């Protein structure tokens, strides 16, 4: 009986850890390596325009000729992107060809990072994602 209780406790503890590990939150950005900028060229899969972090899914490759893979790049909030980088909900749509500069995750095994600059191939429109940009005078 005691063993059963211990097992149940262990399972509950695991559940808690899993729950915490996937919980959303306002988080720091030091999981990204800001000393490296990578560039990916590919096709937009989805722009998730939500708080607290907008994310862009893109099917693309880091080098020409490589097999495309799904990458997910995180950004700041919709409000900050509008103010700091001129974004809008329809800035990109699924199927758009784009080139994206981003700071990759330090964990090189995960295909993720934080977006630095996006260029829409068809229009040449450029969107950036530095939330501190909105402090600069003259943005009004």
């Amino acid at each position, binding site marked *: 009986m005691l063993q059963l209780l211990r097992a149940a406790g262990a399972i509950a503890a695991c559940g808690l850890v899993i729950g*915490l590990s*996937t919980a959303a*939150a306002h988080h720091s950005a030091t999981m990204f390596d800001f000393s490296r900028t990578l560039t990916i060229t590919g096709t937009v899969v989805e722009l998730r325009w939500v708080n607290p972090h907008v994310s862009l899914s893109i099917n693309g490759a880091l080098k020409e000729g490589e097999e495309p893979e799904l990458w997910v790049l995180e950004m700041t909030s919709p409000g900050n992107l509008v103010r700091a980088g001129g974004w809008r909900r329809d800035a990109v749509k699924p199927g758009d060809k784009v080139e994206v500069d981003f700071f990759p995750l330090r964990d090189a095994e995960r295909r993720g990072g934080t977006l630095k600059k996006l260029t829409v191939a068809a229009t040449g429109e450029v969107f950036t994602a530095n939330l501190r940009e909105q402090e600069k005078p003259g943005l009004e």
Partner: protein
Amino acid sequence: MSIRSPAMRCGALLAIMLAALAMSALCVQAAEPSRKAPTVINPPPTAQDWADLGKLPDWSGVWNPKITDQDAQVATNPPPWNEQAARKVAQMFAEEKAGRPRLIFSGCLPEAHPSWMLITHNAMEILFTPGRVTLLGEADGNRLRRIYTDGRSHPDIHDPTFHGHSIGHWEGETLVVDTVDILPQVPLAVNEAVGLPNNGDMHVVERIHLADKDILHDDLEIVAPKILTAPWKTTRIFFRQRARKFDIVEGVCVQGDLAERVAPDGDHIFVPVEKTIWGNIVAPK
């Protein structure tokens, strides 16, 4: 009628006592309505109350935090942590530097007071209504502060909450706010990865005022006796981008955990997204 027998005397005495009791009960009943009358804590505002709001300074529009100043103060104006807190904070800074930032607001809990004022990266707006100032934050459905300016005191019964109980008054064009009853679990944070539970008895006094036409200062004095050795003073800066007329947008933090999808039966639903233990979204392995 004369009262002669002891039994009659006794009966008469009892009758007098009962009458006295009945009289006193009546008196109490008569006094009760005024003693038990409900206290009106939110009286209907008068036309004058609404007109008086026009005399307050113009804090309309959308206010953004000056994040570069928040960044700078991490080094230039750290809280006076006590010895035990300082050890924990040092550990959290080390983890953050190593790329393992602690999720101190895990589960989309509010940054709460005063950390919202200290470290937010999102905009807020400030509403004046008679007897109250209300702060509404962007990017979180649970960023909301109610500051009562109707002259009330803090309640006698403590009911701790994430943003505490705030009462305020105007000194000229400065709003002075006193906040108590903040949950002991609420972190006092210096950034999104470094902060400690205040552990109780936190008391925050703020002086909020315009420092320039489009610059708002919140001068805070934070007393947190369980983790600080002295009151911590800091000024947080908010700026207004008047010309672009940005509106606050709705934000529900937990929405970041969920992707919008359409189920086979046509229902529009949310499904969990994959995240790392640091809280950021990644592509599935």
